[in-house]
């Protein structure tokens, strides 16, 4: 263990144990609960901060200034971060309108159906090095490795996310919404396959599908990471992630220049805000997946067994970098046409990921 670890208040250390006993929990349960809170609250927080990054970042890219007028307590603009609080308050106090012909129950359910999968996809991703303390292993991921689901879990959950969009679209009984929902489900079907095949070739070279195995197999040397071995797979996976998270250049579900606001045309107030947050949480989960699969997860370049906090920091840096790339690409590329998306999905991404799979299978058979 590195030099920093004794100073870190980690479970197994007296303060955490004391806190656990105060709450009448065993240290293991306490650890579990705090992990859940840290991960989900952290992703939620990052997602809302990312709405700020998106707005300020896009402003900078387009030579604008972005939101900088909201003042916290009438004093601090905090580089526009106060806008977050202002928006939150505004969304809470807006009239919560449900269209008369909407399916009320589903209309209410849809934002949660979108939000929850986006958030829980994060559960298996290790955000730091596992460590041993007091004779017990502690893993920095909500679900410990070896749970049998591994990376299949975020894939499956990611596929679930489209239900939120689809239900939102269908229940609001609006033609624009239906068009948006239909586009989202079609995009999901055509991109899921390419994406999954790209990931399968990683499972193949790793010899397992547990995220900790994938990370361990990549090691601490940057040129041993999957991005170097499978650049093609990375391109396919990353592109499909844009379709998966419904973001530009593939944001057909929303497509505000064509179908008003797509699936969330009828949504307002906090429900809309929840849908927007779902998109950003999904973006966070997607960038965490990219970092885990192709950039060595929490591995710190050139440091074997890094201190736990350093590994967490490194994972965060990688994840936030990719989250920034999502924003960056959004403000660089225009939206594709719908048939171009289908063309790209079925005739380019799918063959590419298949070629990638076959190539790595061949390499494995050659004993590499």
């Amino acid at each position, binding site marked *: 263990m590195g030099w920093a670890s004794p100073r870190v208040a980690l479970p197994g250390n007296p303060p955490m144990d004391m806190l656990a006993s105060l709450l009448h929990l065993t240290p293991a349960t306490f650890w579990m609960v705090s992990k859940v809170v840290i991960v989900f609250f952290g992703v939620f927080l990052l997602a809302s901060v990312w709405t700020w990054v998106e707005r300020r*970042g896009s*402003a*900078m*890219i*387009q*030579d*604008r*200034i972005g939101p900088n007028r909201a003042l916290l307590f009438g004093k601090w603009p905090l580089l526009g971060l106060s806008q977050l609080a202002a928006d939150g308050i505004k969304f809470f106090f807006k009239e919560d309108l449900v269209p008369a012909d909407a399916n009320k129950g589903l209309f209410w359910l849809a934002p949660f159906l979108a939000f929850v999968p986006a958030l829980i996809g994060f559960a298996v991703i290790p955000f730091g090095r596992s460590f041993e303390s007091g004779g017990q292993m502690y893993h920095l991921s909500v679900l410990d490795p070896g749970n049998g689901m591994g990376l299949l879990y975020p894939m499956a959950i990611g596929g679930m996310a489209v239900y939120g969009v689809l239900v939102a679209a269908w229940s609001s009984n609006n033609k624009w919404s239906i068009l948006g929902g239909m586009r989202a489900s079609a995009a999901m079907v055509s991109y899921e396959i390419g994406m999954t095949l790209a990931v399968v070739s990683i499972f193949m070279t790793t010899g397992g599908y547990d995220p900790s195995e994938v990370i361990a197999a990549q090691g601490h040397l940057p040129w041993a990471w999957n991005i170097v071995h499978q650049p093609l797979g990375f*391109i396919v996976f990353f592109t499909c992630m844009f379709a998966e998270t419904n973001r530009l250049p593939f944001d057909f579900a929303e497509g505000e220049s064509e179908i008003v606001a797509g699936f969330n045309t009828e949504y307002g107030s906090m429900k809309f805000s929840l849908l927007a947050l779902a998109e950003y949480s999904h973006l966070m989960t997607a960038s965490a997946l990219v970092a885990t699969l192709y950039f060595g997860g929490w591995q710190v370049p050139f440091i074997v067994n890094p201190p736990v906090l350093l590994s967490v920091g490194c994972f965060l840096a990688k994840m936030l970098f990719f989250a920034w790339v999502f924003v*960056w*690409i959004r*403000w*660089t*590329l225009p939206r594709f046409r719908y048939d171009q998306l289908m063309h790209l999905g079925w005739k380019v991404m799918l063959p590419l990921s298949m070629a990638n799979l076959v190539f790595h299978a061949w390499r494995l058979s050659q004993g590499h």
Partner: protein
Amino acid sequence: MGVVVKKVELSWLDRTYVWPVMKGMSITFGHFIRQLLTPTSKRFTIQYPEMKKDMPEGYRGLHELKRFEDGAIKCVACFMCQEACPARCISIEAEEFSDLNITQGFEEKRPAKFDIDMLRCIYCGMCEEACPKDAIWLRKDYEVAAYDRLSMQYGKWDLMNTYAEADGKERISQDPTPSVLRRTIAL
């Protein structure tokens, strides 16, 4: 006549799509960094209440009734501007007065009332063109707004003081020329 549309032949590098995307991303990132490092005061956006746009030469904004050195109004109430105004928003009432100040002659004419309805004014500058005395000018001030309609009816003293305010001069509410009033003429 039809136009022959030339099809652009893309090189194989451009057709991969990945390379052009990277080029595009480098452009947007360049903008991002440049804008990030530019201090707020030098950015393109003029942040209005704190920063104001420097209007170009010849901009036509709020009117000003010019004064002489001693503060007396230059306008001689000749009604030229009132006639020239296409929006019919100037209304003048003239008065005759005996000026005891030698510099301005003895018998004089000046506006008793000089009202401009700023809600109807189209800032065309015709009044400025028409004035033989250069007594009415359009300033560069563009913040002509008020909370009610009545505040947009500018009177003689308001118009004379738009000038004082912008140049940091003393506001006046009385003609400094000692005078004996004869009669008032309304057109």
